[in-house]
């Protein structure tokens, strides 16, 4: 399996000595500790929550933004005109606004998933885990993840909130 990860076994030997000693800990092991820099590796790819569960984030922040006073009159008008369920209408009204905001981001807005406390209960633990991991760092947090679909909702959320930088 290691061979799958590295095209050439020799690549590992070519690494600088200081990188060979990189400390790898689980989030549980790192709890209560602090480091200058934290590299969070495949948090989403290895998450027990699926991508639909992670997409609850998108409907969540879109909804809370819709309730804010900056809400456009057009979005409110759409909501009033619609006979559909309030919650889902809010999410779709947010979709329209997303497109405008998302235009400046390199990340495409995920499709919002409406929240169900029972079905998405895993998200509670997952968010706490992410919070714990990020707050281990004193200086720098780098999040690298190979699962594009699962990482997208949170990446998008943090970028829209201007709380993270897109490192490419």
């Amino acid at each position, binding site marked *: 399996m290691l061979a799958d990860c590295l095209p050439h076994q020799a690549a590992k030997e070519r690494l600088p000595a200081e990188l060979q000693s990189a400390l790898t800990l689980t989030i549980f092991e790192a709890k209560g500790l602090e480091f200058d*820099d934290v590299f969070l590796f495949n948090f989403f790819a290895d998450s027990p929550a699926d991508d639909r569960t992670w997409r609850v984030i998108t409907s969540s922040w879109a909804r809370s933004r819709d309730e804010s006073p900056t809400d456009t009159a057009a979005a409110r008008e759409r909501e009033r005109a619609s006979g559909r369920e309030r919650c889902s209408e809010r999410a779709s009204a947010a979709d329209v606004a997303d497109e405008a905001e998302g235009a400046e981001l390199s990340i495409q807005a995920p499709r919002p998933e409406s929240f169900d*406390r029972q079905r998405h209960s895993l998200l509670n633990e997952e968010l706490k885990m992410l919070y714990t991991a990020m707050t281990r760092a004193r*200086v720098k947090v780098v999040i690298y993840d190979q699962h594009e679909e699962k990482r997208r909702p949170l990446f998008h959320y943090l970028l829209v909130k201007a709380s993270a930088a897109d490192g490419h």
Partner: protein
Amino acid sequence: MDKNALFFTGDTCQTIARGVGFRFEDLTTMFFQLGEQQRKELSARGLRPDDMPKRALVQVPRVNQLSVNYRTHNGILGAASQIVSLLLELFPHSVDALEKDVGHFNGPLPTLLTDTSKDDLSILLCGSDPQHSQIEFGAHQVVLVRDQVRGRLRSAQWRTLSAQWTLSAQWRTLSAQSRTLSAQWRTLSAQSRTAEDCEGLAHADSRLRSSCPL
């Protein structure tokens, strides 16, 4: 023994042990109910709370929120508080609603690597020339993974990747900034920790004296 000489500390956003959760709100509720129960028991025995020594009565503990974060800067704290906002909105009974904590410095926002898909990884690996890396990767850095088995298998892959990335100019700029900040923090957090310890000791001392009226 003083029933109230107890000290609890924690952060409810970090209750990650599976199936375990607590809030300070729940703790205060618990003490309130214990107090009520005690009052009932006393009155059943024909006693008034005033007849009892104060330390024998269960009181609702005071909750102090520490809203200054001495570990890190506002770049990281801002992102962390966005996660807390999600928790508060989706699972309001799972965390305490507290003020956002602030740090003494501004600093780099968490970096999200978005262009490094699995396909790009092999290009990154083959294209890397880690021998020219000047970065120190030591005890001050940590790679956080979900589980150790998978983490070990992947750490070789990760190291190569981070070596590649650390070569970028962006990284060097960030590191330079962070080294300056780090030095400042070490001084500041040393100061503040001392201040905190003194406060803590003074507090413990007054508690001790109030519980031992000799």
